């Protein structure tokens, strides 16, 4: 049974292997226009999680993405060919790119061969994942506008990433990072959770 969204401007469907838990919201099926995941649960959106109009799930056949309870995906551009996870109560702003691979080899000859295969087949799978490295983002993480989260990055619970930052590597819990490349700014004081 194909799922559609009432009032959707785009004439598409939510793919069958996208799991939407109760109270979760997807604004438009266009967000799945580049979606090719064949994993049993390609996308899992938790209870009260929302994916607004700027989101794009550009996912390859082996891609799997999850976002937890009440996580807000305002404008996430996801490039995912392995695993990307975001915990509960996350805040992801406009034009944030989270990528688990570059979809291009560092070797120029390999890039040329890939572009020739793509032009011949017009198959997006020809833009093959290269060394996909999972990205893990904990609970209660806030990522500001226009950030890029690069392959292999781990962001722990409670961290904040300032607008336009480019993050690669490891961000510890409750740290504030900002800049391009992103650097440590300060540590937040961990309070009692107000989620409930």
């Amino acid at each position, binding site marked *: 049974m194909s799922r559609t969204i009432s009032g959707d401007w785009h004439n598409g469907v939510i793919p069958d292997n996208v799991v939407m838990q109760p109270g979760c919201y997807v604004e438009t099926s266009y967000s799945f226009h580049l979606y090719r995941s064949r994993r049993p649960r390609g996308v899992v959106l938790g209870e009260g999680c929302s994916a607004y109009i700027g989101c*794009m799930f550009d996912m390859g056949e082996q891609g799997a993405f999850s976002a937890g309870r009440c996580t807000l995906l305002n404008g996430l*551009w996801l*490039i995912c060919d392995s695993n990307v996870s975001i915990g509960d109560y996350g805040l992801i702003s406009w*034009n944030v*790119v989270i*990528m688990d691979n*570059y979809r*291009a080899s*560092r070797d*120029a000859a390999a*890039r*040329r061969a890939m*572009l*020739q295969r*793509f*032009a*011949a087949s*017009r198959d997006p799978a020809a*833009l093959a994942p290269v060394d996909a490295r999972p990205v893990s983002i904990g609970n209660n993480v806030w990522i500001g506008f*226009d*950030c*890029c989260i*690069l*392959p*292999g*990055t781990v962001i722990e619970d409670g961290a904040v990433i300032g607008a*336009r*930052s*480019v*993050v*690669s*590597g*490891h*961000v510890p819990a409750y740290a504030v*990072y900002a*800049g*391009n*490349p*992103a*650097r440590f700014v300060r540590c937040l004081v961990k309070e009692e959770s107000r989620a409930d």
Partner: protein
Amino acid sequence: MSESAANQPVWDGGSLPAGVVVGRGVVIRGTAALRRFRSQHADGLTVGESSTLDGVQLSVGPQGRISIGRFCCLTNAILMCDEQIKIGDYVLIGWNVVIADTDFHPLAPAQRVADALACSPIGKDRPRPSVECRPVHIGSNVYIGPNATILKGVRIGDGAWIEPGSVVTRDVAAGAHVGGNPAKPVAPQDGETV
């Protein structure tokens, strides 16, 4: 290069305007692609064989010229051109990349006031002050990651790798690997910069 065959739609937004010349197998997707194409040159936009422009927006002024080589793949990039943007062959450009060969507005404060007035709804017939433009040249085999910005006058050499989110304000040598704001050379491995 040849004009597109009439029976093969190159662009899903309609027929190509005058001044757009594309090679065999070119695909342009997205109705906004050429909405702001105003070049008066016969070669205002040339796209080489087998290149793909998916969701790309081209804003080209009357004197602007954009040339894109063969086997390029651009996804949701924005190219703003008042003079010249030249892109080689086998270039990969990621989502939300901005390439501009102009500053759009003058630097001097009084000139900016005049420009703001000329650009406003009440300043229709006022001439705009001149704005500095310098061509952007991007070589072949270049990779430009998502959210990167390439500013006016920049030359990027063949085979360079521009990290996602970079702001490129100066020339990049052939084969160089740069990242950051402003973009600088980074270690040849995936930067564990945090």
